[in-house]
């Protein structure tokens, strides 16, 4: 792991601390209250705050997961530096794309 990867990994982790606490609390509260899909969507649709919150979350989580997956592949499989870096980057881009689509679907569609 390079100093840059380390910085991004620990940095996104620290960034996500308040996001995770918020997200877990919200999800558990929504599930406990038996919120339906329509009810959840009615709260998220058109909300720039939710877009911002989850946009940040997706951005950070993708990087964090990508570096994590890269590390596991590097340490536990015979794949080398270049191959694992490529897999990591593809993983991050995939999560960014899917995450952006999810936010768009939940806030704007």
């Amino acid at each position, binding site marked *: 792991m390079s100093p840059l990867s380390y910085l991004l990994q*620990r940095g996104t*982790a*620290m960034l996500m*601390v308040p996001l*995770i606490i918020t997200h*877990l609390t919200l*999800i*558990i*509260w929504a*599930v*406990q209250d038996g919120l*339906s*899909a*329509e009810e959840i*969507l009615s709260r998220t649709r058109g909300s720039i705050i939710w877009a911002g919150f989850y946009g940040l979350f*997706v951005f950070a*989580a993708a990087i964090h*997961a990508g570096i*994590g*997956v890269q590390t*596991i592949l590097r*340490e*536990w499989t015979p794949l080398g530096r270049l191959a694992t870096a490529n897999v990591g980057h593809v*993983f991050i881009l*995939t*999560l960014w794309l*899917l*995450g952006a*689509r*999810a936010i*768009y*679907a*939940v806030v704007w*569609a």
Partner: protein
Amino acid sequence: MSVSGITRASRAHPGFVASLIHRASGLALAVFLPLHFYALGLALESETFTGFIAWSDQPLVKISEGLMVSALAVHFAGGLRLLAVEFFGLTRAQALWIALALAFALGVGILFLMRAF
């Protein structure tokens, strides 16, 4: 890494076990996240989304969701342990207690509040 490698006697201590749990939960989340984002993206077509939400009412899906929330809580607690040692210079005993306490608290909270069934 061989299966027997995990059970090396030199690894029978809390620090390794905590790290293994951290890695396993992280991997589980990495596998879950694309599926999670994809499912939410289905809200673009509300018919598919409602159908998906109905599908997700199955017990197996509910159990998986519960496991994923637990995985997040466990990974979160383990991560805080790591940050405590690396950035705040806590000793291994102190940091381990923090992680255990937090994981326990989160676990109790989640179990109490989650009435998904």
